[in-house]
């Protein structure tokens, strides 16, 4: 029984393992097997306790702050300064204790990590208030993130890593509107890079644990949001290709790195798949393909905007590498039309840029949108087909939903002529009918 295992006993046993191996009482394989057994026990059994311990630490921290605040007004500036450091010093003493004595206890590590990063924020805030510092929230978040990330590694805290990623998002939203205008968001990517090695370590150790999956999801969501800011800042009108690349990369990574033994999709692949569908629908609108700027010449643009552009292009590149590798080794499990999305988007982007920039509907923008419409239809049919093959109702429905969304999108696309809309509807409707006929025939055949 997992629940009846005493963590102290497990700690003691783990401490004994090297000695037992040295004495020849058990083999090193047996020691590794015991280690693995208790490793999985810890990861399964402790999660609820970890959450409770973390919340507890946060409450204790808040309580200390309230106690301090109670008599705050009557204290001199010097006293307030000293008191502001106390929670931080307590937290640091606890981190030291955990590193020395409780390094194998996850609840201890997670709780103390949260307490320490909260204490850093408290100390900076209290000092700022005492000294009438009104620095921007942006600067506060930045310094806080830098001071917090080493704790994630030292205490191996996945909850801490998730909180850190959320913090980078808060920073990004705040930074964007600083000084009233769009600000360079590239720092976000540096912040994100700082947590990636931690994620990789976690992935290698505990690939299937809920926390690892949760961290992967949070990282993916943060990347999606940040790419929006980055594309806006780059002003290169290539966000369509970048987003197609990102969503496909998330989908492919979910399929490849979080592959499941059953035929169900991993959470990450599901997120990527939904993102892919939504992006395809968005790109199927003709107005998306009207290019608003053409200052793509590298040298004429600022270095920061060029860096943003380079970051944007990383995602389609990642798709090509991920998909290319599996295709080369002939062992892909993903949907080929889905993997082709960034290439199709890049093709549409090239087509739309063939016409001169006029900021209205052109033959080229129309052609680009048509390409994406055909592609989305094909993608919907492919997902539907995969749903039928794997007997996955959810997947088949998602394919149908994609096709239906495409049809609805065309209905509201008022810029298209009635004739074009009519033809589009007939094509989509015919596709829908054919897909349904195939679905039911197949169902009938298997039944």
């Amino acid at each position: 029984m997992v629940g009846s295992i005493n963590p102290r006993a497990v700690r003691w046993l783990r401490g004994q393992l090297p000695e037992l191996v040295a004495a020849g009482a058990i083999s090193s394989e047996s020691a590794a097997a015991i280690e693995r057994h208790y490793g999985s026990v810890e990861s399964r059994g402790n999660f609820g306790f970890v959450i409770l311990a973390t919340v507890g630490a946060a409450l204790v921290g808040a309580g200390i702050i309230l106690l301090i605040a109670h008599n705050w007004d009557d204290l001199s500036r010097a006293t307030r300064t000293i008191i502001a450091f106390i929670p931080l010093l307590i937290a640091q003493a606890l981190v030291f204790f955990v590193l020395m004595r409780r390094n194998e206890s996850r609840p201890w590590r997670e709780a103390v990590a949260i307490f320490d990063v909260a204490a850093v924020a408290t100390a900076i805030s209290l000092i700022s208030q005492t000294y009438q510092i009104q620095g921007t929230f942006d600067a506060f978040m930045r310094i806080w993130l830098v001071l917090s990330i080493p704790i994630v590694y030292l205490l191996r805290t996945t909850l801490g890593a998730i909180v850190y990623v959320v913090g980078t998002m808060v920073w990004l939203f705040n930074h964007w509107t600083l000084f009233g205008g769009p600000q360079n968001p590239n720092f976000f990517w540096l912040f994100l890079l700082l947590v990636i090695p931690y994620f990789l370590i976690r992935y290698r150790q505990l690939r299937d644990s809920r926390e690892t999956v949760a961290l992967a999801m949070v990282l993916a969501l943060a990347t999606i949001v940040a790419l929006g800011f980055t594309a806006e800042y780059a002003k290169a009108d290539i966000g369509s290709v970048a987003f197609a690349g990102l969503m496909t990369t998330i989908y492919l990574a979910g399929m490849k790195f979080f592959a499941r033994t059953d035929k169900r999709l991993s959470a990450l692949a599901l997120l990527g798949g939904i993102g892919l569908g939504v992006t395809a629908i968005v790109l199927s609108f003709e107005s998306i393909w009207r290019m608003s700027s053409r200052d793509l010449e590298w040298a004429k643009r600022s270095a920061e905007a060029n860096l943003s552009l380079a970051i944007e292009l990383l995602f389609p590149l990642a798709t090509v590498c991920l998909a290319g590798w599996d295709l080369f080794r002939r062992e892909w499990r993903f949907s080929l039309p889905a993997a082709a999305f960034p290439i199709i988007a890049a093709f549409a982007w090239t087509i739309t840029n063939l016409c001169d920039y006029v900021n209205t509907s052109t033959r080229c923008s129309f052609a680009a949108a048509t390409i994406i419409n055909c592609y989305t239809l094909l993608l919907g049919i492919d997902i539907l087909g995969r749903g039928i093959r794997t007997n996955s109702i959810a997947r088949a429905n998602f394919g149908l939903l994609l096709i239906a969304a495409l049809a609805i999108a065309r209905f509201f696309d008022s810029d298209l002529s009635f004739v074009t809309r009519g033809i589009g509807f007939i094509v989509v409707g015919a596709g829908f009918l054919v897909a349904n006929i195939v679905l039911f025939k197949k169902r009938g055949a298997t039944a």
Partner: protein
Amino acid sequence: MKRLAVLIFVLVALAQLAVPASIVWKRGQTLAHGRVWKFKTEPVDPIDAIRGRYIALRLAAEKARATPDPLFKDVAGPVFVTLKEDPEGFAQVDQISTERITGDNVIQVENGYWSDGWQRVRFPFDKLWVAEKIAPQAEQAYRENSRRGKENAYVTVRIRNGDAALEQLYIDNKPLADYLRDQEMKKPATP
């Protein structure tokens, strides 16, 4: 491995302590040695005056120019201003630059845009934290002395090498705490 982790943690802990400590040190230096500037407050929107435990200050010197300044049109980063004293001894904006300058009369400001016929800047001190106990009285005193016809309040700010430290709110030429104490004593004793 454990020793390395502890060593790294010691460095991290020092960095965590150094950030607030450096604020204390820098502000302490500015408050001790900075040049004192007086900033006259402006009439405030009563609803806007107090937010929790701080007074939202509106400073007259934020009206930097009476004509639109082309410098502010596209600026999306920090702006630096130098200060000078007007005939009454209150601070007002002298020069404006997008290049970094330092000195005991320089403040980094934000673009405040063009509004109500003024090219505005935003100083990095628009909130004055006040003790919770005196917050309601402080709000009332500030409001009464920062309205049209009775502009009787100013703040002192110490500036040193570009660091501006808000020092004190003066009402009727008295520090806020003293003013409130005097007001309290003037009140007729309730039987």
